[in-house]
């Protein structure tokens, strides 16, 4: 096996800023070096290096037994990953696009998520892959899949927005004894503005903890993934109107950091939820209900949401831009809410 280390997993070691994608690759590389039980499975992740080249150079270093090119059968290899996890390994399954996770829905919800509950023991298993629109990928390469799994007790769902969180949370996910769905917005993968210096040491971010991406007094925006960046842009524009926005980056959707959300809403009295996922059945509904239960008396206005419209993700640029939530949408909602 080769001793060469691919450049894209050495940014932090070299003291250089890393992109979101490089942060993911660093996390995988470091965890595979740290723990020989960790192995990767997915379509074209070996010789080809994966559709987005996250695992380029991995097979040369770790070999074909730890970087497994699978048949095109997401259900089958996710089920196999479950079996390997039962036997003490720590599989990380890559969905080439997270849209393709649907064939594995059965095994993930009926088998993997219930394992601990059934007394079959913990099932440490990560299913990761690219999500999200804006790349003109159309209906089958652009979805956000979190809410398909959010309703399933037994799973964890992580959706980071920065390279540092992506790396730290992926390392946590791999070390977690629960199964974790790990979503990576492909619009962040190589985004220049996201590039950042990552901590040199073993960087781990705990699952289940939101972060305050921006502090403010007048209005809380709860969001995650790419929409954190859209919301921060909107917050900057709202600041010019004198509206001080607090942006909460959920980072983990399941379990939801209810404490952080409630604390912020009790401070600002107003809540806007922003997600790229479609509107009906989106996480905004759950968050609104939690605030209704926990902070109703603190609210000074209605809870609002800005989301994608209830439609499959369109292919054409014009249609997709209309479909996706924009900075202008968030600004409009923020101004509306500030008038209460």
């Amino acid at each position: 096996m080769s001793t060469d280390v691919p450049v894209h997993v050495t940014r932090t070691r070299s003291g250089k800023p890393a992109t979101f994608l490089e942060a993911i690759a660093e996390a995988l590389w470091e965890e595979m070096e740290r723990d020989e039980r960790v192995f990767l499975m997915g379509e074209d992740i070996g010789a080809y290096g994966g559709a987005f080249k996250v695992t380029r150079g991995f097979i040369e270093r770790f070999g074909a037994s730890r970087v497994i090119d699978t048949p095109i059968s997401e259900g089958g290899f996710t089920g196999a990953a479950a079996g390997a996890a039962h036997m003490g390994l720590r599989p990380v399954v890559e969905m080439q696009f997270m849209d393709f996770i649907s064939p594995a829905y059965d095994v993930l919800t009926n088998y993997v998520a219930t394992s601990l509950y059934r007394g079959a023991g913990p099932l440490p298993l990560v299913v990761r892959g690219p999500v999200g629109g804006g790349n003109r990928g159309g209906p089958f390469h652009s979805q956000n899949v979190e809410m398909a799994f959010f309703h399933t007790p037994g799973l964890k769902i992580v959706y980071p927005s920065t390279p540092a969180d992506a790396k730290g949370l992926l390392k946590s996910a791999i070390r977690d004894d629960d199964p974790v769905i790990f979503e990576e917005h492909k619009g962040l993968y190589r985004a220049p503005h996201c590039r950042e210096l990552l901590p040199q040491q073993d960087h781990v971010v705990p699952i289940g903890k939101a972060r305050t991406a921006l502090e403010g007094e007048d209005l809380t925006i709860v969001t995650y993934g790419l929409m954190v960046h859209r919301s921060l842009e909107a917050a900057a524009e709202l600041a010019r109107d004198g509206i001080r926005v607090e942006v909460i980056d959920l980072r983990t959707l399941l379990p939801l950091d209810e404490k952080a959300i409630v604390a912020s809403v009790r401070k600002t009295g107003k809540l806007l939820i922003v997600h790229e996922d479609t509107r009906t059945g989106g996480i905004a509904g759950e968050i609104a209900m939690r605030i209704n239960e926990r902070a109703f008396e603190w609210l000074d206005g209605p809870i609002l949401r800005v989301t994608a419209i209830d439609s499959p993700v369109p292919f054409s640029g014009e249609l997709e831009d209309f479909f996706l939530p924009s900075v202008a949408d968030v600004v409009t909602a923020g101004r509306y809410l500030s008038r209460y």
Partner: protein
Amino acid sequence: MSRDEIEDLLYQGYQGRRLEEGVRRSGFLQWPEHAVGIDTRSIVIARAMKHAVDGRGDLCCPGPMSPGPALAFGATPLEFLRQLAHRGTSPAAARAGGMSWTDLRRGLIGWDGASGMMTQVLAGAALAFAQRGENRAALVFESERALDTGGWHEGVNFAAARRVPVIVVLVASGSAGVGRVRQIEEVARAYGITAVSIDQDSHAGIFATLRAARRRAAVGGGPTLVALEGATDDRWRSHEEFASWALTEGHVTAGELESIRQAAAAGVDHAFARIVKEPGPEPHDALAAVRIGSPPLRPWTRLKSPRPDGVAEAPMEGPSVN
């Protein structure tokens, strides 16, 4: 087969028969109409694997309604009955039913999932054995109806592609899809793996065939498909034939055979006597072991002084809402 193995098989066959008869008589337990895998041949197949109690032996998924192989892997009648009666003391703590459960130390993995899914899971377990270079193999029993599922084919395809040490037994189900099991040689050929049919074999023959398949799997020979017909037609006939054979061949005397039968029956009867006195699960167990470190909230309407926000009773974390 050694004399010990023959005696064990006789004992476990009698156990299975007594269990089924007892369940049917009990009036409060149910044994599925199409229960398969309790017949002696299923037990023989499972006996041919490597057994351990420290998690280092082979792995067996006994299949749907298929407790026979589990007996061979060390499951007890008491555990079956607790599972069937959903007692709080059952291996799955009454949180999951069925006739199988997971105990990795004994090499048991519960059949929990859609038809065909466990072939995927056991293929993955076998992958782990191969990766670590362990002399271990996985065994999974599926109804022949699994042949009609995409999930089963995905599991077999994965197993074949990685040449992992897994043996897949397809049991004629006696329900819709009957006869599909006869096609496994064609299926195996398509995947480039081995198929064996054991319908005409004696129990000793079955044992030898499975031992060979296991040996082949454990040294990188890849998966084997096994067809098992007639398991539901008259599942005790094969056991009686086996007992007669053991008697005729001089492996046991009539007296020994009778004492084995009585010992098995006594154990099962004792288990029945115990479970009728055992309580059901505590309702609060429904909150346990969903996710590590974050059990679900109790219903707020059942708190001592219910308030919709739960504020008066507890801080916000779920676990401390009591």
